């Protein structure tokens, strides 16, 4: 299942360092990672570099991966939970090219998993690093536009504004109407944005086995959650945190405990729900799990990939 990349072309080798970044930049990022791990949830400013992909397209995650990756790593890259989304394919090809690294779609095989908007369904384990691409690292940005203000709020643990905003939510909608990028408290000290993962994934961050690294290239921030760290989604006693659930199960593999994507099949309301985690779904089907629409064309590519 692990595919070995083609050797780096002479062109690339001649013009660029291993894993694209120069060694000084890697050292700078590595130092930031260590501080981020030492102060869980705190956003470390770093000298983010211009990358050959646009800001907002994973430059933070790419810089983190480039700073940690070595030839022995096995690299997986997902976007929206899927290995075959175009940007994930593009980033995976980038590292196969510049870092001579083996790539995989298998969550368990990977040593570095770079992700946008999801945490894989399969429980991560020690020895794995999950690298998040983060568009906006500041959980308070929606409430306060100024970095100078939000930095002070974190410094003095002034998170009242966040609670007020959630409470206003409750008064307006009868519940906390936050769905993705749902803010968390790390070790009861730093308020942290989990990146725009659905709140469905929030509980996976608490006391997990892997190292979680978050990189925001455009905003020039790195933060981290070490293994076995307390990560609590904000809530109120009378309005406890709850995750998304579906009445439907995955049309392809029948999973009823996975995060589902809604796939629109026509313009009169026919739709199907399928696992957002493409590898998880493929693996379940390979194990013989069958959903109500098993065999649908959507399953073709994934079934091949899972083999």
């Amino acid at each position, binding site marked *: 299942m692990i595919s070995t990349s083609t050797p780096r072309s002479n062109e690339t080798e001649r013009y660029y*360092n*291993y894993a694209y970044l120069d*060694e*000084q930049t*890697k*050292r*700078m990022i*590595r*130092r*930031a*990672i*260590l*501080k*981020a*791990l*030492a*102060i*869980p949830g*705190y956003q*470390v*400013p770093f000298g983010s570099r211009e990358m050959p992909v646009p800001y907002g397209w994973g430059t933070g995650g790419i810089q983190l991966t480039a*700073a*940690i*990756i*070595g*030839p022995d790593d096995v690299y997986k890259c997902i976007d929206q939970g899927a290995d075959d989304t175009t940007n994930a394919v593009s980033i995976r090809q980038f590292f196969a090219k510049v870092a001579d690294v083996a790539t995989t779609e298998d969550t368990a095989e990977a040593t570095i998993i770079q992700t946008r908007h999801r945490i894989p369904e399969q429980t991560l384990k020690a020895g794995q690093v999950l690298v998040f691409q983060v568009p906006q690292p500041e959980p308070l940005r929606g409430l306060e536009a100024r970095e100078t203000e939000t*930095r*002070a709020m*974190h*410094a*003095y643990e002034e998170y009242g504004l966040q609670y007020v905003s959630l409470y206003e939510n409750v008064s307006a909608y009868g519940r906390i109407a936050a769905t993705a990028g749902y803010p968390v408290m790390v*070790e009861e*000290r*730093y308020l942290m944005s989990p990146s725009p993962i659905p709140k469905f994934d929030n509980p996976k961050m608490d*006391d997990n086995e892997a*190292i979680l690294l978050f990189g925001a290239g455009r905003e020039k921030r790195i933060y*981290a*959650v*070490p*293994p*076995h*760290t*307390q990560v609590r989604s904000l809530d109120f006693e009378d309005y406890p945190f709850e995750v998304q659930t579906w009445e439907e199960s995955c049309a392809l593999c029948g999973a009823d405990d996975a995060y589902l994507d809604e796939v629109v099949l026509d313009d009169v309301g026919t739709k199907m729900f399928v696992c957002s985690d493409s590898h998880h779904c493929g693996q379940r089907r390979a194990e013989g799990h069958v959903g109500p629409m098993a065999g649908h064309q959507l399953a073709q590519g994934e079934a091949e990939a899972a083999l």
Partner: protein
Amino acid sequence: MSLGIDLTQIESGFSDPVFGSQSVFRAVMDAVARPGTIADLGFAPEPPEGLGRAAGAVALTLFDFETPVWLDPSVDQARAQAWLRFHCGCPITADPQQAAFAVICAPESAPALGAFNIGDAKYPDRSTTLIIEVVALTGGAAITLRGPGIKGETGVSPVGLPADFWHQFAENGAQFQFGVDVLLVAGDRLMALPRSTRVQIEGV
């Protein structure tokens, strides 16, 4: 090289700086992410006398012109400085407050943890990381650690730290988000004690 050191006498660095530093970094990252666990950096090159292999490996991996380094006066300054300047290009500072890293080889006589930079409220990352050479990472009195990176609790037993080190370290942790971060090294081996680690001292 104003120190009058013959360049040919300087001990070598990584035979392959790109992959050498990557391997060391991953080991150090894992150690910081899992305080109390021990990393073996025996594959790193031999640094000048007075520095352990793990300490040297950290220096080669993380020091450069952006990181002022406080160097323990007990180390052969000329030799160690020449090596650090040649391989890392790092400025050497005598002021613990200016140090991004401190290399401590004689923990008994070194300044207290609190003498180094503990960062500021808005930028607690601008703090010193201390690399402290001890006799051994195991075999001493048992200390219990808790905190991020530790499942429940874990025991460590380094040998060669000053008697009041753990009190200093507890005080360091009590002022979180401020604080220094510590890498204990003993020869080839390394263990991390980030400021987030809480220490339980027996009988206190």
